[in-house]
């Protein structure tokens, strides 16, 4: 069965510095998608970045980038130049091509220190 594991319940970083959030996953399929979502206290889940498994190039969205290691089934999120507005819960999620459900990790709480 597919699983997503986030081993860091909480991370903190100084404003303007860089932080990396970890995620590992398990799937038997070759076609799948990986996501990082942000959930601020407002509860609104917001897509941060998406990676297609068939793409070797790591996805990048402004200050957010991923390190996708397909063989190791690892999908970490790097946030550069951290800002106070980045403080939130971050969830890693997996969607297999044959199964439209999103499978979620337990989340990492990111704290930004001013």
């Amino acid at each position, binding site marked *: 069965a597919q699983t*997503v594991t*986030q081993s860091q319940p909480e991370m903190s970083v100084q404003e303007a510095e860089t932080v990396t959030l970890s995620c590992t996953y398990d799937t038997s399929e070759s076609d*799948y*998608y990986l996501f990082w979502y942000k959930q601020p206290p*407002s*509860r*609104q*889940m*917001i*897509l941060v970045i*998406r990676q*297609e498994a068939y793409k070797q190039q790591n996805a990048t969205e402004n200050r957010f980038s991923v390190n996708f290691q397909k063989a190791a089934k690892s999908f970490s999120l790097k946030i550069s130049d951290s800002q106070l507005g980045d403080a939130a819960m971050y*969830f890693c*999620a997996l*969607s*297999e*091509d044959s199964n*439209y*459900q*999103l*499978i*979620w*990790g*337990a*989340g990492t709480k990111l704290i930004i220190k001013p």
Partner: protein
Amino acid sequence: GAGVSQSPSNKVTEKGKDVELRCDPISGHTALYWYRQRLGQGLEFLIYFQGNSAPDKSGLPSDRFSAERTGESVSTLTIQRTQQEDSAVYLCASSSTLGGAYEQYFGPGTRLTVT
């Protein structure tokens, strides 16, 4: 355009009562998903709808949970005879169609508290 909306924002109910939660997806989105998020945890898939196809109910935790969607519009999630373990945030999402390639847009959720 408008995003996904959910109502009510918060619901407090007594154990044993029935509750109905509503989701209005983004107009034109054929796929609609319901998730449950318990405190401090990730999301659990409950059910999805795609157009007029039969829904995937594989995530519903018990027969007390049911959901309906009329065409490609509003969906309601009903929990009968609520229990304290049903307390959670219920999130709805919609996407243009099914598939991991299509971004799911989430509503703000309904926080359900069963006393």
